[in-house]
């Protein structure tokens, strides 16, 4: 059992103060960028620009690059074909960013009473479980979701009591370990998400390290403290679309109004998976590409198994169009969506919206150092359940940071649409004619 940490609050307060100063200082570029920060996918400037937006609600006004990364492919190869200035919509144009999540109406095959849900922004928060992140982080995300009329997902780790008052904005995830899944948590949820696979470790299941399985986490997951927890892959009860339909029937019996989301990875036949999900009664198919993820995963899986989201989105979009069911299911994309420009590109490629994870953590101070799994967990108090480290994030502060990022993203997204001559985010979906491929 890990040693109990003695928390000395003045020391915590000291570190919080210095950290917050650092989050404000570094994006000014007064001293350049931190030399060891960043990588091809999230260069230092992209991390710092996210900190900047999380502090100011605005995109950077200095030379920080906040639109694209250095990966040399995918979103970083795409740009928008903006209209000449005189053809763009005037700045005062009212531009709508809302998207519906239930496109099947109230009479989907799984139920006759499915909720009508619209989110005010074309994104919501991805699953990060209690245990993989702290309760403070979950609370911060839930508060923001409520403020913006969107959602966040529990991940596979249950529903701490402190989240109950935000339940109308929380997606309950049901994954293969069934951790934290109860009749009550299913009844809470406007949306139930079945996680069949995740992009960072497709086909490999989940693993919560023993050090993170604290007494509270273990209680929530109905397991033993300080013992590693494995979510096997795949669902032991699902071999087919029909089996999945059985799962949908099961949750709809407990919560008849809930929408059903199906989170899948991006194999060669991801298009068929999406169609199968639709016929099994899903309202949302959530495609999780291979380059994202917030938790620990084998390096070999992240880089090599399943395709990046940029390729999966158009594949699924076109196939659903061909099947004549595109307007009856919502396609949400995740796995390497880093900026509002990525969000817009994902939608132009064919998604209805996206699911964010890493960007929210970076807003709260993540440096993408990749030490989430090491020792006591994240040194910034994010992906940890360490009683001392987790105090580095105050939920109200975290919520404000994510909210500020949302504000900046919304502002930029409206500007992108205005420059493309579109009044509605829904009109951007599948508009690959508005993109340019950069050689």
């Amino acid at each position, binding site marked *: 059992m890990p040693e109990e940490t003695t928390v000395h609050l003045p020391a915590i307060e000291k570190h919080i103060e210095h950290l917050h100063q*650092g989050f404000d200082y570094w994006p000014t570029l007064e001293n350049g960028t931190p030399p060891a920060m960043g990588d091809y996918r999230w260069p230092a400037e992209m991390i710092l620009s996210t900190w900047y937006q999380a502090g100011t609600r605005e995109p950077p006004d200095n030379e920080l690059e906040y639109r694209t990364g250095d*990966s040399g492919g995918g979103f970083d190869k795409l740009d928008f074909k903006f209209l000449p200035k005189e053809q763009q919509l005037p700045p005062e144009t009212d531009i709508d960013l809302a998207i519906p999540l239930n496109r099947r109406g109230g009479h989907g095959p799984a139920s006759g009473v499915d909720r009508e849900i619209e989110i005010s922004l074309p994104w919501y928060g991805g699953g990060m479980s209690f245990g993989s992140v702290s309760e403070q982080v979950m609370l911060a995300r839930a508060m923001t979701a409520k403020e913006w009329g969107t959602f966040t997902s529990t991940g596979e780790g249950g529903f701490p009591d402190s989240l109950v008052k935000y339940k109308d904005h929380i997606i309950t995830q049901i994954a293969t370990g069934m951790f934290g899944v109860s009749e009550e948590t299913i009844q809470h949820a406007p949306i139930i998400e079945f996680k069949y696979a995740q992009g960072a470790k497709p086909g490999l299941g989940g693993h919560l390290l023993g050090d993170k399985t604290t007494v509270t986490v273990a209680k929530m997951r109905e397991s033993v403290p300080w013992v590693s927890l494995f979510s096997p892959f795949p669902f032991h009860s699902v071999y087919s679309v029909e089996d999945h339909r059985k799962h949908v029937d099961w949750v709809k019996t407990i919560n008849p109004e809930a929408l059903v989301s199906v989170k899948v990875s991006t194999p060669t036949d991801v298009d068929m998976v999406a169609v199968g999900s639709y016929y099994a009664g899903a309202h949302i198919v959530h495609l999780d590409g291979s380059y994202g993820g917030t938790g620990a995963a084998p390096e070999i899986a992240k880089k*090599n198994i399943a395709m990046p989201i940029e390729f999966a989105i158009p594949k699924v979009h076109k196939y659903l169009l061909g099947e004549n069911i595109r307007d009856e299911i919502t396609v949400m994309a995740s796995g390497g969506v880093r900026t509002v420009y990525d969000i817009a590109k994902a939608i132009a490629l064919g998604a209805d919206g996206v699911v964010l994870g890493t960007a929210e953590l970076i807003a709260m101070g993540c440096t993408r150092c990749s030490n989430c799994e090491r020792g006591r967990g994240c040194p910034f108090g994010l992906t940890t359940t360490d009683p001392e480290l987790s105090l580095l994030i105050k939920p109200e502060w975290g919520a404000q940071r994510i909210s500020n990022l949302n504000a900046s993203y919304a502002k930029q997204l409206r500007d992108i649409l205005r420059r493309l001559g579109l009044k509605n985010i829904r009109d951007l979906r599948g508009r690959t004619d508005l993109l340019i*491929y950069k050689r």
Partner: protein
Amino acid sequence: MPTNNSYQRYHIDTKPSPDFVLWPNRFVVNVNRFQLAKLLITEIIHQRGDMKAVTSRPCMYGTFSGPIGGFAPRPQHCVGCLRCTTQHPEAVRILRNPDRERLGDSYFTSNYVGAVAYEAETGSIPVKGAGYRGKFGGAGWDGMWTDMSEIVRPTRDGIHGREFISTVVDIGEKPSYLVFDEDGGLASAQPRTLSIPVPFIYDAPPKSAESETLYEILASAAEETQTLAVIPVASCRFQVTSVVPFIKLGEESQLENLGFTPKMIEIDDAQSPTPNIQSLISNLQSQFPDTIIALRLEYPEADTLLEFYENGVRVFHLIADFHGRGNDGTPVMDLIRQAHMTFVEAGVRDEVTLIGSGGIIAAEHVPKAIITGLDLVALDTPLLTALQTQFEGDCADREASQFNMPANIPLDWGVQRLKNLTATWRDQLLEILGAMGLREVRRLRGEMGRAMFQVDLEREAFAEIEGY
């Protein structure tokens, strides 16, 4: 072949085997002592003498936990989380260590070196948080992704637990049918085939790294992991059958002094089926009737491969340079595919074994090479890296490249490092196979439908976008 009573599940014992020589730290920690002193004084005042708060440090890894804290940082503990520099930009700077980034060469970059070193040290699969950090795709192996299935698994008990996925591969001649006489007896020759539990063998080291110690490490590690080690015949002093002697024309007499019957012999320098080579193969086959004879050659033209096949050769060890290129610069991925397809189109692919070397420097390259068409790979530079060998400049050429092995490495240490590496590469292969729902690696060979290529995916996704 084990009997039912003797069955043991294949397992490699791993244990930590820390670095033998000190490698450069990953990060350099620069502390401005004046600013640190200033910070300390400010904090004593600000915290009103609460020394617990004053001395509470931002680093949780021990970088500033020495006797005089940040005044003498310990960069060997730094993991690059950047919390210190985020909190105190005026006092601390963390830099990537250029000495560390110089490890390896332009192909076997320091990131790959770091991964192999970690695997050899710990016997564990590299696991990290926060998503993928590298380039989107790229040339060669980087432009290829492996498939997965949302619902299919070989079994349902976890790939490292009770679920059994076979990584056994066969080397040798595999005739498509056997001939029996009227009495039901075998009329055709007994096929010479051996099975090894992992789809990789250890290749002979380049000249500049050769040493008796290294050969002994290779032979012992191969024996313990039940694979094979290719070693020049002149250095085959170990009486272990895991050793595969390789000979050049004129060295065959040295095989008489081996003291054991090898499972396999490799003939080097066999670029075309000359009468000399034919006669050597035939002589060796008479001398060692149960031994598999393999040809070691640079990736040849299709005609040459088929000519060798017509002359009875069934095992080919195909060599690219250490950067994974053929003589004309063709990427090894394409060379493997060409060789594989040559035999597929001739209708004899199942009768031959293709072993490949060169450019396979990471665990993910093994399944990718097998998908592309190899039966198994022969590891070269990763073994040297596991043993903390330094590259001198760019090491592409097999003959001219200079490698510096650390002096006096202990045998046990070297063997354990290679065992750890072998175990982690096998475990990672299991991850890939498990994700696909495959029960055995033999079914992966040439299964290009199990791979997704960047060039194809990009065309499918972006073809209608202006500028593509």
